């Protein structure tokens, strides 16, 4: 019996090592995806801010700031504050405040962009924007008043999730508006009032925002899991991160092969 036990034990050990290796692979892919997403949003954000400096127009300023504040300037302080040993424990709450404030400002810029670009006529956009700002402000004040911004308890706070909901819904609004507008642009293409390439950008933007929105939703669903996230969730987030990073690039900095394809139709 002893040799059989030894073989079974060996098999179990191999399985554990294999699972651990897979987990490391998925974590590495996840970090690569996050880095690619942050790099893409940073480069495109800077490019849009340069455009805003030339044109003096507010939509490019808003979307450029949304990419930078909601990307690298928001996530880097949060990741640094959340990881063990990267920053002094006393500095972690300040880093979290900085990161969340940046994410909130980025979301506000995105709300503003959707309002001014898609809903500038009428009062609906103004009301939705004001409600979103109020929600973000209430979540920040509530978190501060309840002695929050502690990395250990932050994700258990109702105030945090209120702000998270407001930030997530900024992407949901972008997705709905751009997808609806894509449908309208397709009609214009059919009667010769728009080019295919000008219609397709709204499909790309709706896909981009859907990918980011899905990342947020997965984060919310996975919040209930204790300890490390299930590898499947991490893998899905990584794939969505890679998708979003590539789509941001193609939407705002279309490569020549893409333009050739759609401008020829």
């Amino acid at each position, binding site marked *: 019996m002893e040799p059989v036990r030894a073989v079974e034990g060996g098999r179990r050990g191999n399985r554990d090592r294999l699972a651990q290796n897979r987990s490391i692979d998925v974590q590495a892919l996840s970090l690569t995806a996050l880095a690619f997403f942050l790099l893409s949003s940073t480069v495109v954000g800077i490019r*849009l801010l340069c*455009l805003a400096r030339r*044109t003096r*127009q507010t*939509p*490019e300023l808003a*979307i450029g700031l949304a990419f930078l504040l909601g990307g690298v300037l928001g996530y880097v302080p949060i990741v640094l504050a959340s990881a063990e040993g990267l920053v002094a424990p006393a500095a972690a709450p300040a880093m979290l405040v900085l990161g969340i404030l940046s994410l909130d400002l980025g979301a506000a810029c995105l709300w503003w962009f959707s309002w001014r*670009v*898609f809903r*500038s*006529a*009428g*009062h609906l956009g103004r009301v939705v924007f004001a409600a979103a700002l109020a929600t973000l402000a209430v979540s920040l004040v509530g978190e501060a008043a309840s002695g929050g911004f502690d990395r250990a308890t932050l994700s258990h706070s109702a105030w945090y999730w209120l702000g998270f909901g407001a930030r997530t819904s900024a992407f949901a609004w972008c997705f709905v508006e751009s997808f609806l*507008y894509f*449908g*309208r*642009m*397709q*009609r*214009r293409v059919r*009667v*010769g*009032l*728009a080019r295919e390439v*000008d219609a397709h*950008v*709204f499909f790309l*933007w709706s896909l981009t925002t859907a990918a980011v929105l899905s990342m947020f939703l997965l984060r919310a669903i996975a919040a209930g899991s204790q300890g490390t996230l299930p590898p499947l969730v991490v893998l899905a987030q990584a794939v969505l991160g890679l998708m979003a990073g590539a789509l941001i690039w193609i*939407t*705002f*900095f*279309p490569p020549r092969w893409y333009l050739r394809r759609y401008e020829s139709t």
Partner: protein
Amino acid sequence: MAPSCSPAFEEAARHLEELSDLDRLQARGTLRIALKEAGLAAHEVSGAEMRVVVEKLLPVELDARGIAEADALCAGIGERLGEATPEAEAPSPASVFRRLRAR
């Protein structure tokens, strides 16, 4: 509150009302339906876009409502639509995204 209509829409609706038997409400409603078919809305349509809608889509809508000689009527509206019809005040999402992608 509904957003106000663009100058191009107001002008085309006025001409349609004058040249047909449609009353104000019917003329504006028919024009709105034609615009919707083209993926446009009354508050954002420009003069150039309105001319295309009047030429390509409005005759179909007028035919469907039993208006006689819809093509000639639309040609008349097209002629009356001034070349210098002021554009809508706010830039369209399409024009904003075109600018955002400019190299």
